[in-house]
C-alpha cells in the first residue's frame, strides 16, 4: 500500500511539477481559525436564537425553525451560491462592505466566516434549543416565583442545566465548520492563506494526484472529528450520571 502510493507520488508529483507536501500547515491553521471564529460567533447568535425557539409562543415560529434547519438539507453549493450573490460586488451588502473597508467580501476570510456561520447555524441552534426545552418548566416557574428575572434565570438555571447541549453545539459547530467544502469553494474560492481550508486542500491535492498529501490531511480531519464527537458523547453520558433530575 505504502509502496504503491509513494510510487504514485514519485511519478505524478514529479510529473506535474507539484511540490509534494504532506501537510499544508497554512491551510490547517486557517481552518482552525475559521472554525474558532465561526463557533464563537454562532454561540453568541445561537444562544438568544435557541432561547427564542425554545420558549416563544409565536404561531409562525415553525417557519423560523425550518429556515434555521435549511443548511442541513440544502446542497452546500446552493447555499454557497446565494451567499456569493448576497455578498458579491453587486449586492448592497457587498458594496457597503467594500465602501467601508476597501475590501470585497467574497473570496476573503471574512466572507468565508459569514458563509460558514450560515452553513453551521443549525448545528449550534438545534442542540441548544433542544436542551433548553428539556429543562423542567417547574424549575423556571420556581425561579420566577422567587422573584428572579427571565434573563437571570437563563444564566443561573437554563444554561447550567444545558451544559450538554452547549458542549454538543460547540463541538458540532467546530467539527462541521472544519469539514465544510461546498460553501467555502463557492464563497471563498481557493486562495492560500485567505480561503484555502483543509477540505479544499484535499481536493487540490487529489487534483494534483498527490494522494499521500490528501491522505494525511484527510486523516487529520478524521482524527479531529472523531475526538470532538467522543468529547460530546462522553460528556453527555457523565453529565447525566452526575446530575440526575431531582
Amino acid at each position, binding site marked *: 500500500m505504502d509502496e504503491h502510493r509513494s510510487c504514485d507520488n514519485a511519478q505524478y508529483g514529479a510529473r506535474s511539477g507539484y511540490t509534494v507536501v504532506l501537510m499544508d500547515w497554512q491551510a490547517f491553521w486557517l481552518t482552525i481559525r475559521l472554525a474558532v471564529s465561526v463557533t464563537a460567533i454562532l454561540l453568541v447568535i445561537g444562544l438568544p436564537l435557541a432561547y427564542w425557539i425554545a420558549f416563544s409562543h409565536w404561531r409562525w415560529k415553525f417557519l423560523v425553525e425550518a429556515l434555521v434547519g435549511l443548511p442541513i438539507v440544502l446542497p452546500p453549493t446552493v447555499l454557497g451560491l446565494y451567499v456569493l450573490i448576497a455578498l458579491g460586488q453587486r449586492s448592497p451588502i457587498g458594496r457597503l462592505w467594500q465602501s467601508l473597508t476597501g475590501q470585497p467580501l467574497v473570496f476573503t476570510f471574512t466572507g468565508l466566516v459569514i458563509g460558514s456561520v450560515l452553513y453551521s447555524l443549525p448545528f449550534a441552534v438545534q442542540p441548544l434549543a433542544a436542551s433548553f426545552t428539556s429543562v*423542567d418548566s417547574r424549575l423556571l416557574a420556581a425561579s420566577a416565583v*422567587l422573584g428572579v428575572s427571565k434573563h437571570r434565570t437563563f444564566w443561573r438555571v437554563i444554561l447550567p442545566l444545558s451544559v450538554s447541549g452547549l458542549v454538543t453545539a460547540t463541538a458540532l459547530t467546530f467539527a462541521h465548520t472544519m469539514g465544510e467544502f461546498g460553501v467555502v469553494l463557492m464563497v471563498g474560492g481557493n486562495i492560500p492563506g485567505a480561503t484555502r481550508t483543509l477540505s479544499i486542500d484535499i481536493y487540490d491535492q487529489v487534483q494534483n494526484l498527490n494522494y499521500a498529501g490528501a491522505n494525511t490531511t484527510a486523516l487529520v480531519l478524521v482524527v479531529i472529528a472523531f475526538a470532538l464527537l467522543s468529547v460530546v458523547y462522553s460528556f453527555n453520558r457523565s453529565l447525566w450520571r452526575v446530575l440526575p433530575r431531582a
Partner: protein
Amino acid sequence: MVTSTDNLVESAPSTAEGVEVRIRKRQSEAFDLDLACQLGRGITIIFGASGAGKTTLLDCIAGLTSPDSGRVVVAGRTLFDSDRGINLPVQARRIGYVFQDLALFPHLSVEENVGYGLSGLDPRERSHRARTALDSLGILSLIQRRPAQLSGGERQRVALARALVTEPSILLLDEPLAALDLPVRMKIAEDLRRSIQDLPIPALYVTHSRDEVFVLGERMIVIEGGKLIAQGTPHEVLSAPRGETVAQLAGFENIFDAQVSSVHEERGTMTCRIGSARFEASQVEIETPLVNASVGTQLRVGISAGDVLLATSAPVGLSARNIFAGKLVSLWQRDMIVVAQVDCGVEMFVHLTLAARDSLQLQPGREVWLIVKTHSCHLLAV
C-alpha cells in the same frame, strides 16, 4: 354542606394579612374554575380530587397562569384585577410556592437553592439568611449537598426553607408530600404544621390525602369540578350531614369524635368511647389500633362504610373485636351500592351489595349487628 355564609363571615379575615380570591377561568369546554373565598393567616387545606382545579387555583394566585376574570388580593396588595387591568408579573408577587415535585435546582447546593431568591442581597447577607432559614428547619448540616443527595423529607424541608427565606406574603404548597411513603409522610406533615402554623401569613395547602387534612388542617375548603363546595374546619366539613361528595373525598363515611378510655400497649390497641353530633353521650366503645395517645386524649375515628360488615343475627367466633348491636334505620340505593343507616348508639353507615340486601331481606326496623375490624378504625388527630 358547610358553604353557609355565616361560616364565611365567621372566618372572614382582615384583608391586611389574608388573601381574597375571586377567579373564573375556562379550562376546557367541560370545565370552568369558578370560585371565591377569603382566607386568613394560618393553614387552609384546599381539598379535592385530582383535576378539581386545586393547582390551577394556586397558579392563579402565583401568577403562573392568568384567570379569565376576577381578583386576587394578598395582604392588601392587589395582584390581579381584571376590572382594573391589573396583572402583576410573577416575579413581583412575593409568593412562597412549594411545588408538588418541589422543583429544587438540581445543579445548586442546598445553600444555593435556599439563597436563590435573595439574589439582590450581597453574598454574605444571602448566606447568613439562607443558613438561618435552614437552621430553623433543623437541616443546617445539609448545606453543601445537592438535592439528589437528600432524602425525601430533607428535600421537602429545603423547598420550604427556599420559599420562606424570601419573606413572602403568602405560602402556597401543592401536595408537597405526595412523593413520600405514608409513614414518613405523616411525620413530615406534623413537622410541616409546626413550621408554618405560626407564620403571620396565609398558607394554602393543596392535598387530596385525608390523612394530611387531619394532621394539618385548621380550616379547609373543598373544590370539586372547579367549584368551591364546602368550607369550614375539617371536622365540620367531613362530618357534615352526608355531604356525599365530601364524604367520598374524605374516604370515610363514618367519622366520630372519640376519647381514649384505655390503652393496651401490650396488645397494640386502645379502646375509645365514640360519639357524634347527634348522639352526644353515647356509651359505645370501640377498639382501635394503638397510637401515641394517653387516656382522655381527644381523637377522631374514621371508618369507611365499605369496611363494615352487617349481620342479621348475633355473630359468634369472629376475630373482629368490634361488634355493635343496632337497628336498621333506613336503606337506599346509590348506583350499585346499597347504603344502610344503622343506629347502634351512634349512627353508622354501611355499604352493601344489592345481592346482600336481597338475600338478607333487609328492611328498616330490622335488628342487625355491625362488625368492624380494629384496623378498619382510622385514627385522625383533632
